[in-house]
C-alpha cells in the first residue's frame, strides 16, 4: 500500500469517526486521536521528511487535503453537537410559566389616606399649602372664633366630646369644658389666620370627632379636609370655580356640580355642594336616593365675624372656606357599605384599594 493510499484510508476512517461521535467529549477524543501530538495523521505528516524528494510534493499535498477535510468535519460536527447540547439544556430548563412568581409583599395605603392624598394633590397644584392643628382643641378655636354663639346646639354634651381640663379653669356650662375633641377641621382656619398674613391658601386634612355610636353610617371619629383662601378680591365666583375644578379633577370632567344655599355659622353666604350621581348621571337611582345628586361638600365665604376674631380687615380681604369628609367620598367612590370597616384594620379590606 502506498503512503497515499494509507492517507486516504486514514481520511475515510477519521471522517467516519467524526460522524459517529455523539458527544463533544467523543468528538474531542477523535480530534486528539488523529490530529493530537500523538495522533495518527500527525504521525504520517511527521514521516514526510523520510520520503524521497520526488514523492514528497504529492504526499504533502494529499496529506494537507486530508488534514483540512478532517478539521472541517470536526468544526462542523462540533457546531452541530453544541447546538444540540444547548437545545437539550433549554428543553430541560423549561418551566410552567403559569406558576406564581416569587414576590415581595407590598403594603397598601389606607383608602382614606389615598383619598386625602388625591385631594391634597389637586389643591397643591392650585398653590395650596398643608396646614395642621391639634385634635384636642379649645372651645375658642372650635366654636367661639368660628362665630358659634355660646348656646349653639353643636356644643351640646350629646354632640361634642369634652376633655377634662386639668388647668383648674371652670367651663361656662356645667359638665362641659373649655377643652374638647375638635368636631371639624375648621379650627385650623383660625390658627392659620392668627399666625399668617394673607394671601392664605391652605388645605387642612385631619381627624375629627363627634359623639355618634359606631354603626354602618356613623363613626365617632372621621376624617375631614378643610380648605381656606384669604386674599384680596376673592369672590363667591372664585369659590365656585375652585370647587368645580376640584370635582372635575377628583371625580371626572363629566360630573356636574351644583351649589345649594345653606347655613354654617362661620361662612356667609354658605352653600352645600352636590355632584351629579355617577350611577344614574342625574336621573335619580338608589345610590343617590332618587335625587340625581350626591352631597359632598360644605362651603362659603368667610364670615366677617371670623375675620374680626383673628384681626383681618374684612373690608380689605375676603375669603372662602370649604370642608368635606374623606369617609363620605370613599364610600361614594368605592361603595363601602359600612363605615366601621375603615377602623377595624381587617387586611382583607385594606388590600382592596
Amino acid at each position, binding site marked *: 500500500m502506498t503512503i497515499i493510499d494509507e492517507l486516504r484510508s486514514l481520511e475515510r476512517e477519521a471522517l467516519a469517526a467524526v460522524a459517529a461521535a455523539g458527544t463533544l467529549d467523543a468528538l474531542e477524543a477523535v480530534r486528539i486521536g488523529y490530529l493530537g501530538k500523538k495522533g495518527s495523521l500527525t504521525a504520517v505528516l511527521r514521516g514526510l521528511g523520510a520520503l524521497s524528494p520526488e514523492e514528497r510534493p504529492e504526499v504533502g499535498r494529499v496529506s494537507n487535503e486530508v488534514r483540512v477535510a478532517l478539521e472541517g468535519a470536526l468544526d462542523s460536527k462540533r457546531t452541530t453537537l453544541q447546538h444540540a447540547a444547548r437545545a437539550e439544556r433549554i428543553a430541560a430548563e423549561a418551566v410552567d410559566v403559569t*406558576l*406564581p412568581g*416569587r414576590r415581595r*409583599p*407590598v*403594603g397598601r*395605603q*389606607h383608602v*382614606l*389616606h389615598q383619598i386625602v392624598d388625591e385631594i391634597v394633590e389637586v389643591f*397643591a*397644584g*392650585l*398653590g*395650596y*399649602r398643608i396646614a395642621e392643628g391639634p*385634635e*384636642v*382643641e*379649645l372651645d375658642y378655636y372650635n366654636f367661639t372664633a368660628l362665630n358659634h354663639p355660646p*348656646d349653639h*346646639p353643636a356644643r351640646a*354634651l*350629646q354632640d361634642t*366630646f369634652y*376633655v377634662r*381640663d*386639668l388647668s383648674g379653669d371652670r367651663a361656662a356650662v356645667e*359638665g*362641659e369644658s373649655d377643652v374638647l*375633641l375638635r368636631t371639624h377641621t375648621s379650627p385650623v382656619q383660625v390658627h392659620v389666620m392668627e399666625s399668617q398674613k394673607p*394671601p392664605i*391658601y391652605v388645605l387642612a386634612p385631619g381627624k375629627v370627632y363627634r359623639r355618634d355610636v359606631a354603626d354602618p353610617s356613623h363613626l*365617632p*371619629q372621621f376624617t375631614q379636609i378643610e380648605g381656606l*383662601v384669604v*386674599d384680596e*378680591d*376673592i*369672590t*363667591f*365666583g*372664585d369659590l365656585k*370655580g375652585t370647587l*368645580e375644578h376640584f370635582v372635575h379633577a377628583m371625580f371626572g370632567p363629566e360630573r356636574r356640580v*351644583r*351649589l*345649594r*344655599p345653606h*347655613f354654617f355659622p362661620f361662612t*356667609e*353666604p354658605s352653600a*352645600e355642594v352636590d355632584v351629579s350621581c355617577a350611577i344614574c348621571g342625574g336621573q335619580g337611582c338608589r345610590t343617590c336616593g332618587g335625587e340625581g345628586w350626591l352631597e359632598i361638600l360644605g362651603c362659603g365665604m368667610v364670615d*366677617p365675624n371670623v375675620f374680626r376674631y383673628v384681626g383681618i380687615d374684612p373690608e380689605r380681604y375676603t375669603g372662602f372656606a370649604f370642608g368635606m369628609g374623606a369617609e363620605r367620598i370613599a364610600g361614594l367612590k368605592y361603595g363601602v357599605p359600612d363605615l366601621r370597616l*375603615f*377602623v377595624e*384594620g*381587617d*387586611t382583607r379590606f385594606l*388590600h382592596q384599594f
Partner: protein
Amino acid sequence: MRVSLNWLSDLVKITLPVEELCDRLDMTGTKVEAVHVLGEGLDGVVIGQVLTREQHPDADRLSYCSVDIGAEEPLRIVCGADNFAAGDRVPVACVGTTLPNGLTIKKAKLRGLVSEGMMCSPIELGVGGEASGLLILPPDAPIGVPYAEYAGLSDTVLELEVTPNRPDCLSMAGVAREVAAVTGVSFSVPASRPAESGGAASESVSVTIDDPVLCPRYTARVIRGVTIGPSPAWLAERVTAAGTRPVNNVVDVTNYVMYELGQPLHAFDLARVATDAAGRAAIGVRTAAEGERIRTLDGQDRALAADALLITDPSGPIALAGVMGGESTEVSEATTDILLESACFDPASISRTSRRLGLISESSLRFERGVDPDLASRAADRAAALIAEVAGGTAAPGIVDEYPGRREPRRLELRAGRVNQLLGTALSPADVSALLVPLGLDVTGDEVLTVTVPGFRPDLEREVDLIEEVARLYGLENIASTRPGGRGRVGGRTPGQRTRDRIGATLRAAGLDEHIGYSFGDSQDLERLGWECAPDEVLVELINPMSEEQAVMRWTLLPSLLRAVSHNQRRGVPDVHIYEMGTTFITAEGRKQPKERLMVGGALTGFWARPGWNDPGATLDFFDGKGVLETLMEALGSPRWTARPASRPWLQDGRSADVVVDGDVVGWLGEAAPQVLDAYEASGPVVLFELSVPALVKAVGRASVRYREIPRYPAVTLDLALVVDEDVTVERVLASIRSAGGTLLESARVFDVYRDPAGTPEDTRRLPVGKKSLAFSLVYRASDRTLTDGDVRPVHDKLVRKVCGAVGAEVRG
C-alpha cells in the same frame, strides 16, 4: 318642618309642579329632604278593631291580637306596639300590601305564632312624624273601610330641612312667604279676631315679667266656657300632617297656630292657676331658684338649674317657659276656662334649659331660633278665635299684653358695590332691591341701600346677611365661575410633611399595610400592657365618652395595632403586617390641652406570604421587624442609629430593643410579651415597634448626603470566624473591627452565627458551653491601587489580634 301642600295652597298660589317647586326650594336654600304623597301605598290598609289583646307566650315585647276588619273571620296579628287596648280602632295593613316605606306585609310566623297582617303607626302610613306606637282612630271610624278613603288622604307633604338661621320657615306662613318670593307670586297670612264678651281678660289674669331680656313680651287671652273634646277632622288632619298627634280641640288649636304662624302657644286650665289677692290668675315670668322643681306635662319630675326660665303662679312654677307646660295646670276634660299664653322668650335661655334637661319640644325648637315678638298678639287672637270655633266658649274682651322688650325695627345699610365685591356679580342697586323686597324687607336708597328688617327675620343682622339673601335669590347657579388670581402665594408640602409621606411609602414598600385605628383608648390598656406613665404624666380623659373602652385618648398606638392583629387572627387571617401613623395624647396636672405626639407604629405576625411552591415561608420574628426599620432608616438617609438591648413590660425580655438615633431613644422594637398577647387575644409571635415621627423628621434634617467616589480598584475579601462569650454582641465586635481596620477596611458584616445545638454531648462539641461563633466578611480596598496579599495580610493580622484582645475572642480554627 313638614309642609302639607293642601294647607300651603290656602296661603299661597302654588304655580309650579311639585318636582319643580322642590328644585326651586332646594336651590334657594330650603332643602326638600323628602316628599310624601299621602295615601300612596295604602290600598291594602283598612280600619280594624282590636277584639282581644293577649301577651305573646314567647316574647315579652309582643302581643297577640285578634282584629276585626269586617271580614268573616278576625285576623290574628302579632304586634310590637303597646299604646293600644282591646276595643281600639286602628289602621290594619292586610297581607300583600306594600306600605309607603317599602315594607311588604306577608303572612309570617313571629316567635311561633302566625301573623296575618300589621297594625300601623302614622309613620308607617307616611302620615305623621311620630313612630311611638299605633295610630289610634276615633271610636266611630268605620270598620273595614279603606283607611285612605276614611282619612280623605289626597295630600302631598314636603319635609323641609330648615337651617338654624331661618326660624321664619318653621311656620306655614313663613314657608308661604318663601315660596312666594322664590316663585314670584303673592301670599297672604291668615288673621282672625275672636268675638269677645263677658269680663275683660285683665280682670282674670295679671302678668309680671322679671327680666325683659329673658322675656321681651308676654300676652295672655282668656276663653271661657269651652268644651274639651276631640278636634274636628280638618284640624286633626292638619296637625297630623304637620307631624303631631291630635290631643284635644284646644291643644290642637295651639299646635295648629304654632305651625301656621310660628308662634308657640300654651293653654293653661285657668281654674288651676293660683290667684292673687284680686282673684286674678297671677302669672309671673322669672328664673328658677336653686333647688326648685317642676312636674312637666310628660309626667317627669324635673330639678331646675338656677337660670331656667319659669312661668309661675303664687303657688310656684307652672310651666318651663318656652319648653314644656306643667302637669298641675294641664288642660283636661274637666277644663272650661282657658288661659292662653302667647309669649316671646330669649333664645339662649331656652336653648340652655332644653339642652340641660335633654328636652326638645316643637316649642323650644322655635324659641331657641328666635320668635318674632310682634307675632304674639296676632297669634293669640287667631288661636282664641279658633278655640271659640272648635271648642265653643267665648273670648274675654281684650288681651293682657306685657311688652317691656319692644324694639324699633332693625335698619341695615347695604352697599351694592359690596354685594358685587363679595359675589363676583354685576348687580345694580335696583336689581338688589328687587331681589330683597319679596322677602318682606323694606328697601330704599341707591348705591347704599337702607333695608328695614321685619321681626320675623332675626337672622338678618348685618350687611353680609343681606348679601346672602341676594345670593340665594339671584341664584348661585347664575354666578359665573372664576378662580383666584392669588399673586404671591406658594404651595406645596413642608420638609416634615414630605418625610412623613416618605415614612409611609417606605413602610408600604417594605410590605406593611396602613391601618387607621381609633384615637380613643382604654385606661385598662395600662394594665394589659404593663405600661407605667411617667410620674408627671396623666392620661387624657373624656368627660362624656361613648363607652368605658373609649374613655381616654390613646397614649400609644400599641392597643390599636394589637386589636387589629387580633381582629384579623380571629377571622382566620394569620398573616398581618400593618403600620399606623397617628397622634397620641398625654397630659399633666395644670395643663389645659394635652401634648400631642405623632407616632408611627407597626405590628408583624404570621408569614410575609403563605408558603408557596418555591417558597417555604418563615414565621416573622424580631429580625423581620428590625429589617423593616433598617429599610426605613436607609430610606430616611441612613442616620446613625442602633437597636440597643432594653426591657419593656409589653415586650418579651431578650427580644426587645430601644431604637436609638444619634444617641436619642426615639422608640422601641420587639416581640410582644406572652401576657400581652393573652390580654389582646392574639397569638404570637407578634413583632411590634413604635417610633416618634418628629424625632425621625429631625434625624432626616441632620443627615447630610455627599457624593462618594465609586471604587475603581478591586477589593480583597477575607472571612474571619471568632468564638466569643454569649453576652458579647455583634455590634460590639463590629465596632472593634471597624476601629482596628484602619483606612484599608472598607466594610465588615456578620454572615453567620453558630452555637452547638442544645444537648450536644461533651465529646462532639465544637464550641465550649456559653460560647458562640460569629463569622464576619471583611472587605479591604484602597482607592488608588489594586491591593496585594502582602498589603492586606499584615493589616488583617493586626486587626485580628486587636479584636481578640478587645472582646475576648478566639479565632475559630
